[in-house]
């Protein structure tokens, strides 16, 4: 039930965003549709579908059992780690940033023994750097702090 309401809210939010954008563009006419024509109708359709889903949800009233949501903190943590990684990537460079990210994943998200964790982090960061940057010549950022 709460899950369905969440889906409805998400649908309406996206529709509102689209409506705001579409109404700022020339809609045109059916004879000569403008740039806002398509997004406008899509937004209307999305509102209609969201309301339909709301109707379903209110009628079904089934209490959906939440499945293991206990590790939600880990998900948020990993997303935060990925965001930090993205922000720091060009500055600290690919090898170090990736090493730290993988270390976070194997020590915090899916905890492993230290030795194994360090080995995996080294392998993932070093191995991928060798494979992509050295062998395949992909210009991965080396880190701007070094220059």
């Amino acid at each position, binding site marked *: 039930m709460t899950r369905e309401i969440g889906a409805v809210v998400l649908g309406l939010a996206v529709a509102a965003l689209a409506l705001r954008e579409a109404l700022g563009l020339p809609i045109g006419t059916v004879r000569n549709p403008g740039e806002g024509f398509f997004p406008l109708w899509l937004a209307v359709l999305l509102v209609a579908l969201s309301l339909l889903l709301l109707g379903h949800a209110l009628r079904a009233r089934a209490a959906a059992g939440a499945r293991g949501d206990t590790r939600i903190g*880990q998900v948020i943590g*990993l*997303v935060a780690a990925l965001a930090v990684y993205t922000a720091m990537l060009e500055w600290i460079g690919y090898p170090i940033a990736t090493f730290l990210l993988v270390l976070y994943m194997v020590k915090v998200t*899916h905890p492993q023994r230290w030795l194994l964790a360090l080995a995996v982090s080294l392998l993932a960061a070093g191995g991928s750097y060798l494979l992509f940057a050295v062998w395949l010549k992909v210009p991965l950022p080396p880190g701007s702090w070094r220059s």
Partner: protein
Amino acid sequence: MEILSLLGSGFAIALTPANLFYCFVGSLVGTAIGVLPGLGPPATIALLLPVTYGIPATSAVILLAGIFYGAMYGGSTTSILLNIPGEAASVVTCLDGYQMARQGRAGAALAVAAVGSFIAGTIGVVGLMLLAPPLASFALKFGAPENAALLILGLLMVGYLGGASMTKGLMMAVVGLLLGSVGLDPIQGTPRFTYGIFKLSEGFDFVLVAMGLFGIGEVLDNVEQTEEPEVITTKIGGLLATREEWKAAAAPMSRGSLLGFIIGVLPGGGAIISSFLSYALEKRFSRHPERFGKGAIEGVAAPEAANNGAASSSFIPLLTLGIPGNASIALIFAALLIHGIRPGPLLVAQQPQLFWGLIASMYIGNVMLLVLNLPLIRVWVRLLQVPYGLLAPFIIVFVLVGAYTVNNSAFDVGVAVAFGLVGYVLRKLHFEPAPLVLAMILGPQLEASVRRALIFSRGDVFIFFERPIAAVLMTLAVLMLLSPLARWALSRKFWEIVGPVRTEK
């Protein structure tokens, strides 16, 4: 006999050492990710897309196609041995496959699954080869109204067949269309939804969206599942099924192949639905339906054949109409676009080396997969002993490098991460990401077709119902919209036949 010479030229392309190598790598990787639960074909294809930038288009498609149909082979292994479907398309295989394993007939079940997959895959390629060229030349007659009608019908089918809830499937399709409209509009070139961010004026890069939704999204979703799958090293037993077992499996295999082929052609149909349907069908028409769920070999043969038949035939709408029917095929569509090839009715005529090379490689790939799957089964089971926690970092690293290489920019990595979060939230709310990516890739085409048709007809919306081909397609679309009631009735019955299924990954 023209077809034989064309096929011959296809084999000449597919048998070059480089292409044989890509076909082999595709089959190998496909089997591996088919075996591993928690990593699906769309995610893998998204991960490997950047690798294909530097190789010729034909090789790229051979590689990616191999991953897609290879996963159908590998998926059965874990279903049978561990009662955990490696792929969604192998969920029903658990029902009887695992029971067979518990009765010490795992080897027979694996052999039947592999041979059934091989037969269906090969039949599917024959069908693809025979049907695609005439369908493509028919589709050449399509103008803007027909194109629009076809795309609308296709998107409706994806929403309709793609998941548990049609409303949610359609919501995803609409959101996908909106995402597809980010950037310059296809007719006037006015920026939309760019919020002054210059990088958005080219729209969201489909590859980044797919990598985020499927790659990072799946990893985030799996973070919550703490339990590692229990690896039971059951005795696999003799790999050879008895003569009676082959006899019992032969007819279900051929029915499954045929059904899979037909369902696979439909957008949104594909491997998952065809495997469920063929299982239900076998149970329905069996003289001993009570044996199903207790280790009936028919219950392994039919769905495993069906998902492979569907995997082959889902290339038909891509190569003839330019409509990808599922997420994996959409990614192959994207790979072709990156190489400057627009899949559509002109592809068979303009890129014969690609079309026939792909067909020939699929014949070869199916043989390779049979060889990879039968004797190497023990190796694949070993793969399951790698804990997910050690696998996840490598998936993430591949996504991040891949995202960076699209334009060599950290901004793109951020886009992929953001869509990873979106993918996670969508999964939590029980939305299927597949209709979203399909709609996103088809959106600009749909908008341009609708607007052109309307300009051409001077605003007469009946243009979509007046020209015969468009009228037929639109009528089908309307019928489909009006049919949720029938579907509800059907699905109730359908689930009664199939019985309870473990659906978690």
